[in-house]
C-alpha cells in the first residue's frame, strides 16, 4: 500500500535551533513531492514542489530536499513565526498526504 509518513509528529525547538523534518514515501512512480505549511484554523499553504532525487528548493529559513525514498524540510535558525504544522503530499494518482509534523518554536 502506498504511504507517506512524516516524523516526528511534533517537534519543539528553541528559537535559533536548527533541525529537520522528515517525509518518507513508499509510493512508486512519484510525480511530485509537495510541502505545505498549515497554521491553526487555516487551510494549508503551498511551500515547495520537488520532482526528482537530488533536487533542492529554498524559501527564507526553509530548505526542502528529495532522495529516492524521502524528503527533508530543513529549518535553519527558526523564529517563533515558523511555528505551524508542516504537511507533505505525494502527487501520484492517489494524492497521498502525510499526517503532518507540528513544529513549535519557543522564544
Amino acid at each position, binding site marked *: 500500500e502506498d504511504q507517506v509518513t512524516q516524523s516526528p509528529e511534533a517537534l519543539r525547538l528553541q528559537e535559533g535551533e536548527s533541525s529537520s523534518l522528515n517525509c518518507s514515501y513508499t509510493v512508486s512512480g512519484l510525480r511530485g513531492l509537495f510541502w505545505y505549511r498549515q497554521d491553526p484554523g487555516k487551510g494549508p499553504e503551498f511551500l515547495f514542489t520537488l520532482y526528482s532525487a537530488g533536487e533542492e528548493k529554498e524559501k527564507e529559513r526553509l530548505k526542502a530536499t528529495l532522495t529516492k525514498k524521502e524528503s527533508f524540510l530543513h529549518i535553519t535558525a527558526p523564529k517563533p513565526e515558523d511555528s505551524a504544522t508542516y504537511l507533505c503530499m505525494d502527487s501520484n494518482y492517489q494524492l497521498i498526504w502525510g*499526517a503532518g509534523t507540528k513544529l513549535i518554536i519557543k522564544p
Partner: protein
Amino acid sequence: DVKVTQSSRYLVKRTGEKVFLECVQDMDHENMFWYRQDPGLGLRLIYFSYDVKMKEKGDIPEGYSVSREKKERFSLILESASTNQTSMYLCASSVGVSYGYTFGSGTRLTVV
C-alpha cells in the same frame, strides 16, 4: 490576490440535517477538491472535479455528494449529517495537481 473562499468558518448542525458547504475560487482553475481533516488522520479526499458538471469519488465519498454547475463553484453536500462527519472541511483548487493546491480557510462543522 487569488482566493478560494468557503462560505462558513464554523457551522453547527443537527443529526439528520442536509448540509451544504460552498466553495468559490476566482482563479479560473479547472480542478477543485473537497477534503476533510481530522487529528492524526491527515487530509482525506472526499470528492474532486476536473470540469464543470464532472465529479470523481475520492477516498471517503460515503455520506457525501457534490455539485459543480459553474467552473468557479464546488459544493459539498452532506445528505443526512451524522456525528462522525464532525470535522474540518477544506476546499482547494488547482490548475493541475503537479502545480499544487490553493486551499480555502476551512469550515469547522460540528454535528450534534
